[in-house]
């Protein structure tokens, strides 16, 4: 898989600009291209100003929920007596998502500078990067970058001469999807089992170590230096409507050139597919379906996908979500029952088991799904799964249950004939289903 930036059309790039520069992960490379100047600008302004700038940019959280980052920062209680923490969610475990890894491996100082600015904006002295355990390469590169930044005085007691101590610590996860959920992440960071917390209270008020905490995705924070360098309004001019700025797309599946591509938000899916990802991998097998935002969002049919622009609102109008921008492209000939069963197995495996509907529901639905795929399912099973999904969605502490329900219901609705055919045939009716 490549970063894909070489052959992609020349459009404004913010995050992936230096992905292909030699030694892009080194401090010298970063400062040569003007790095660590945005944080100096930030330190020269009052923290509220910095937050205001980010609010102006319209930057929305890139982790999946799309909540405006500046607004989130504003939730930190004023004059709190407790320490304020910044947590960077680098757990990137949503199936089909691999953008944060690129940032950490190829431009770690951009993330660190974003952390400096954010810490200043929310008056935090300590930032934790919760990194997915499997990301050993990314961790090594990131740790080397942190060490370089400390040595150069960009981190530590007096970053960039600001006098505002900022320490950054990497914490490795141990392979649980649920620890990417922000409060599950906090529990894990505190050394406990990754069980999402009940809200209220929200992390901005009671978060890490019972203190006000902001949790942002890697990509979100990596956007912050550019915003401070060029101004929030400049950022807001990129993209469409409330979907401002650029976005890293993780294109995977049956395309000719899977990879990470950056475009302004609002790019047509057709453009992403044809101009960036090089079209479908097999000329005989046209597009069948697209999961546009990681495995937990509702699926789009080919005709829906080919007409949609990739931004929060347009995807929302089709009943799906931009999510983590893990765009999974599925070609004709793929068994959709099998594809869904693979997805439900993931959620059944990864349910933390805390809430009843998710603990029991994900595994029940998964069992039925595999029976559908392998044979032995009855016509009533479809209605049963729909009903079980209704009993799960919106009834749990976190949205893991919803994350299984959304693909399950959309697959079963949009590709109903395939499910019916499986029941009628008592097995997968496709002669040679695509299974990779």
């Amino acid at each position, binding site marked *: 898989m490549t970063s894909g930036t070489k052959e992609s059309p020349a459009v404004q790039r913010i995050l992936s600009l230096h992905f292909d520069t030699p030694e892009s992960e080194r401090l010298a490379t970063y400062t040569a291209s003007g790095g660590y100047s945005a944080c100096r600008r930030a330190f020269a302004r009052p923290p509220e100003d910095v937050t205001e700038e980010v609010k102006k940019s319209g930057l929305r959280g890139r982790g999946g929920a799309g909540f405006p980052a500046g607004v989130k920062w504003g939730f930190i209680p004023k004059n709190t007596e407790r320490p304020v923490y910044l947590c960077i969610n680098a757990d990137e475990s949503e199936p089909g998502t691999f953008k944060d890894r690129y940032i950490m491996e190829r431009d770690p100082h951009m993330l660190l500078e974003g952390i400096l600015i954010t810490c200043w904006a929310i008056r935090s002295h300590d930032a934790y990067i919760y990194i997915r355990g499997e990301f050993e390469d990314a961790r090594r590169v990131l740790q080397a970058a942190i060490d370089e930044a400390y040595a150069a005085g960009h981190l530590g007691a007096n970053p960039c001469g600001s006098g505002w101590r900022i320490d950054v610590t990497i914490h490795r996860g141990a392979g649980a999807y649920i620890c990417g959920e922000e409060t599950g992440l906090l529990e894990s960071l505190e050394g406990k089992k990754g069980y999402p917390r009940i809200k209220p209270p929200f992390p901005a008020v009671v978060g890490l170590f019972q203190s006000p905490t902001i949790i942002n995705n890697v990509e979100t924070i990596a956007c912050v230096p550019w915003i401070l360098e060029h101004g929030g309004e400049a950022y807001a001019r990129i993209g469409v409507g409330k979907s401002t700025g650029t976005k890293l797309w993780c294109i995977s599946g049956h395309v000719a050139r899977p990879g990470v591509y950056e475009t302004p938000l609002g790019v047509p899916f057709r453009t992403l597919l044809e101009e960036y990802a090089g079209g479908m991998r097999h000329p005989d097998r046209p597009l069948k379906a697209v999961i546009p935002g990681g495995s937990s969002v509702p699926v789009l049919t080919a005709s829906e996908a080919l007409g949609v622009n990739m931004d929060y609102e347009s995807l929302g109008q089709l009943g799906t979500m931009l999510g983590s921008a893990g765009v999974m492209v599925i070609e004709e000939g793929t068994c959709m029952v099998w594809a869904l069963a693979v997805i439900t197995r993931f959620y059944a495996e990864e349910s933390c088991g805390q809430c*009843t509907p998710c*603990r029991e529901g994900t595994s*029940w639905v998964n069992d039925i799904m595999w029976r559908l795929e392998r044979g032995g399912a009855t016509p009533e*099973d479809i209605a049963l799964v729909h009903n079980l999904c209704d009993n799960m969605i919106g009834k749990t*502490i976190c949205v893991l249950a919803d994350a299984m329900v959304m693909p399950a219901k959309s697959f079963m609705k949009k590709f109903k004939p395939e499910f019916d055919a499986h029941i009628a045939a008592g097995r997968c009716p496709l002669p040679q289903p695509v299974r990779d």
Partner: protein
Amino acid sequence: MPKIHIDEREIEAGANENLIATAARAGVHIPHFCWHPALSVAGNCRQCLVEIEGVPKPQIACNTPLKDGMVVRTKSPAIQEARRGVLEFLLLNHPIDCPICDQAGECRLQEYYMSHGLYDARRNVDKVHKPKVVDLGPHVLLDAERCVLCTRCVRFCSEVARSDELYVAERGSHSEIATFPGQPLVNAYSGNVVDICPVGALLSKEFRFKSRVWWLKKADSVCTSCARGCNVRIDHHWNQVQRQVPRYNPEVNSYWMCDRGRTHIDWINEQRVTAAQHGEQTLVLREAFELLAARLAAAGSAVTVVLSPKLANEDLLAWRHLFTAVLPAAHLGAGSLEPAQPEDDILRRADPHPNTWSVQALELAADVRALWQAPAKLLLLVGDDPVGWDPALAAGLARFDFVAAALTNHNATATSVLAAGGLLLPLATHAEYAGTFNNYAGRVQRFEAALAPFGSALAAHEMAVELALVLRREFWPAGKPRTSVQQGIWQQLAPAIPAMPRIDWEHVPPEGLNPTWKPTARPRSVLTGEDATDAYSWGAAPEAARAGEHG
């Protein structure tokens, strides 16, 4: 305080009260598993979902902040379906083995299935199997297949017992309660996890397979294993105590009791003295009292009477009166040689006796060994087991012309007394009569009769009255009481002792009276609706839910 509307009823929320507790006071039972009023909110069972006007998703009643004017619906079709759905998930992998489950009859899964479920099983996949009969510790067994993973037990161990033995192992549908390797559930309060377990997952080793709960008859009582005086309920059947469980009292023991108190019940059921015995000979009670009366008359005042701090207020008052005013004895005191117990800042007290406070208030406190040595012709022991605690005392019995002992059990003292040719009288335990103890803080706590007296056993205060009768002495300073002996004791004997509280024996509230209580102010019960939803005997709540459901 915010005023909220629950199912068209308006009610003001109490301080720090959540929706479940507030609704309970309005007569609306919101089903729940994981929430417990004395533990932190986990919000994981999802059974307490309610509809709140203006909020799109159903919310959990246990953690929803109460706002003024909030409109809550607990019986809308969407909520009915949500409850049914959650129950279906909870029961999906449950073995449904009610016929062999100890919890049957007091199980929330059973109750809620009847009140909110009543669906036909749709399970069409294999059940997840988990460990059964897992030995968690000295008092508790786990059946992980019956567990609903509410984590009440986990939170109890970390928040109340502060020992953190339990946790949830694995994840997803394979989650199960577990202990860490080599670290069993050994805290001094482990039995409470069985009480708070809403289903049959955590089982008491002592109560397992002993009785179906619907056979159990219940009596409010007080634990006698230490000076805390935890409020308990004695559950009995076939005139045997089957189990002893804590009874909610926020002033004394909250919802809890220690394992020692909980399991210290065999002495009530077994090895009991059920008839009077003189040497080898069994006597009817009347003969025994006549024998003792004759010996007392012969001894004059050269009598030593040893009472016990395990005796109730009524017993101590009666014997004290008998041997100070009616038939003065040279030596009268109360004490015990039972060693101190481990103490902590949760419930347990070092003093292993339930009534030391009153022994001191009655100025009866004495050293048992000194009483043993005091010059006297007759030794009379009431309660306890001094020879058991100090076998050397047995030799001292031969010094007396006559020895008599009123004892509950055939213990070492009973054996020694009989061997010395003495008289043994059958004494009732506190489970067989009603009385009061004053705990370490002087709180007056009443216990009720649970069992019929074993054989011809008599309560100690009844013996004192009986003995006076046989001696042809007038026991009652103001004539025979018209109500109960206990009432008479409190009305006629207690007022002479300034340190004893003034109580209306017939109206001691179930949660007891603190020592500063004045008879002018009728105490208000501290038990509220919130407690009724989660006190161990919560049986009334689902009835209310059902009534509401169909009404």
